[in-house]
Each structure stands twice: as C-alpha cells, then as structure tokens.
C-alpha cells in the first residue's frame, strides 16, 4: 500500500516537473520537436539581440521582426544546422551587434579587456592604501607604547 502510494507520488511529481514550464517568458516560445532542440533553441534566442528594441533578446521581444527571426532560428535548427552555423548566419546579416556575448576578436578586445584593467588598477590602489594605513597604525602603536611607558 505505501509502496503504491510512493510510486503514485513520484509519478505525480515527475508529471508536474515535465508539465511545468522551465522558465517564464514574456513570449510563449514556439514548440520544438525534441527537448534537446528546444533547449538549444531557447539558448540561441536568448543570446540574440532584438534589433528593433535593442535591450531585449529575441526570446523576450514582442515585435514582429523578433518573431520572424525566431522562426529563422527554428527553421535552421530543424534543417540540422549547428549552433555555430546559426550564430554565424545571424552575424553575417546583422553584425556582432546581434550577439549579447560578442566574441573575443581584435575589434572587441577593448570591450573584454577594459574591466580587467580597471580591476587591476583598483587592486593596486587598494593595496597601496592598505599598506599606508598599516604603516600609520604601526607608527600609532609605537607612539602609544611610548606614552604608556
């Protein structure tokens, strides 16, 4: 009896998991025939910028052009194209601007390197300040020792 109840509960949980949407989207994503394709489709359209409402992804954008571009991605996936082929296609038409995560090439090097350089400068400044403070504190301690004595 308890075993049967257990299987029932597990089955119900599995069913709930399968039926529940994996994420909430502003736009209902078009269905893909297999979960693998669905996952690739979602990853791709979340990585492309909507060219009309530039701070939204293709997955989130309600505009007509985004729907057309999602259809393009879907069609290419169904034709058996790889993710890289689809990305290259989009870049060849719209430029790197369409990628939310642009590749590391000469043209985009400054984009990737600037944060690291800024962080490095910050760390150097912080180190210097900490050393100075430590030296001051040490000097202070010595002063205190002298007056106490």
């Amino acid at each position, binding site marked *: 009896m308890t075993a049967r109840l257990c299987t029932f509960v597990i089955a119900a949980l599995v069913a709930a998991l399968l039926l529940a949407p994996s994420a909430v989207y502003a736009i209902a994503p078009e269905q893909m025939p297999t979960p693998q394709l669905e996952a690739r489709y979602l990853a791709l359209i979340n990585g492309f910028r909507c*060219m*009309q409402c*530039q701070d939204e992804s293709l997955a989130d954008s309600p505009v*007509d*052009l985004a729907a*057309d*571009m999602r*259809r*393009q991605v879907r069609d290419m996936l169904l034709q058996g194209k790889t993710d890289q082929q689809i990305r290259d296609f989009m*870049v*060849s*038409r*719209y*430029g790197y*601007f369409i990628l939310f995560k642009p590749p590391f090439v000469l043209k985009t090097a400054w984009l990737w390197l600037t944060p690291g350089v800024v962080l490095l400068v910050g760390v150097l400044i912080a180190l210097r300040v900490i050393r100075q403070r430590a030296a001051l504190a040490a000097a202070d301690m010595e002063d205190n020792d002298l007056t106490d004595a």
Partner: protein
Amino acid sequence: MSRLRFIIPLAAFALLVVVLAIGIRQSPDKDLIPSPLIGKPAPAFSLPSLTDPGQRVSSTQLQGHWYLFNVWGTWCVSCREEHDMLLKIKQAGVIPLVGLDWKDDRGDALSFLKQAGDPYATIAVDQDGSEAIMWGVYGAPETFLVNPQGIVVYKYIGPITQQAWEQQILPRLPMGQTPSAGASS
C-alpha cells in the same frame, strides 16, 4: 600629498564622466549599426513580383547593373515620407529602384502605388519577412546600393533625403551611368 588625495578621485571621476558622455553620445543609435553586408555579395533571391504574381524577380536578372534595393511597406510611415524622393530618383533616371515589399498586404501595396505613383522598376514580395532577414533589415525603409557585380556597396537606413542622394549615393555611381538599363520589367 594630502591635496593629491582629493585631486586623484576628482580626476578619476572627471574621466568617468567623459567616458560615459562619449558612451551616451555614441550609444547604439539605430542609424549607426553598420551592415556587415557592405563589400559582400548581395543575397541571392527569387521572389514573386508584386505587380505580376506569375512572374519572379530574381537577383540573377539584376546582375550586370547598378540598382538600389529599397525595403518598404505600406504600413511603414517613414516609407511614405520617402516616397516623393523615390519618385525623384526614378525621374533622374540614373539608377533603377528595385523594391522589396516587406510583409505587406498586396492590395494595399498596389492601391498605394496607383495613387502615389510607382517609382520602382520592379518589386519583389517578401510575404513572411524571411528575405528581409537575409539582408539584415531591421526597420523600414532601408536601401542598399548594389553594383553590377552584385556586391553591396552602401546601405542607407531611414528615408532617403535629397542630401543622402546627392552626397552618399550619387558619388558612389560611376560617371556616365546609362539610365535604368535592363532592370525594368
């Protein structure tokens, strides 16, 4: 030394202001996204003609001639704004206009052209918007200048102005260009 302490953060802040100001000025303005198609072959296409659905408009027919590939639709307000300029370009007779009627209603498109005048040598129909994606179109109107070798030479985003026509398009054409050769249907 103590004075330097105030000046350094202030200088850093001033630098940040300058960087951000430049960033805002040059922020991805829709007009500024350069087309990766420039210098590359224009997409090959074969699409139904708007005026005669039995006929097809194809890139092979257009090979060997300069043409302006103009993406428009009757739903697009800026395209209507541009229309008079397109008629002027037709009148100039220097280069044929090839239209791409983008996601439009055929009846609307035909009645609009009948009423406002038809500047196009030929018009291809992109019913579902997939051809526009091939050209990297993200708004209408957009106009591509294609040379006789089928290479995209220039792209103009937005309604063509007299200034754009005179300063951007005409200078890119060879002298002695024969008026709208061949491409008329």
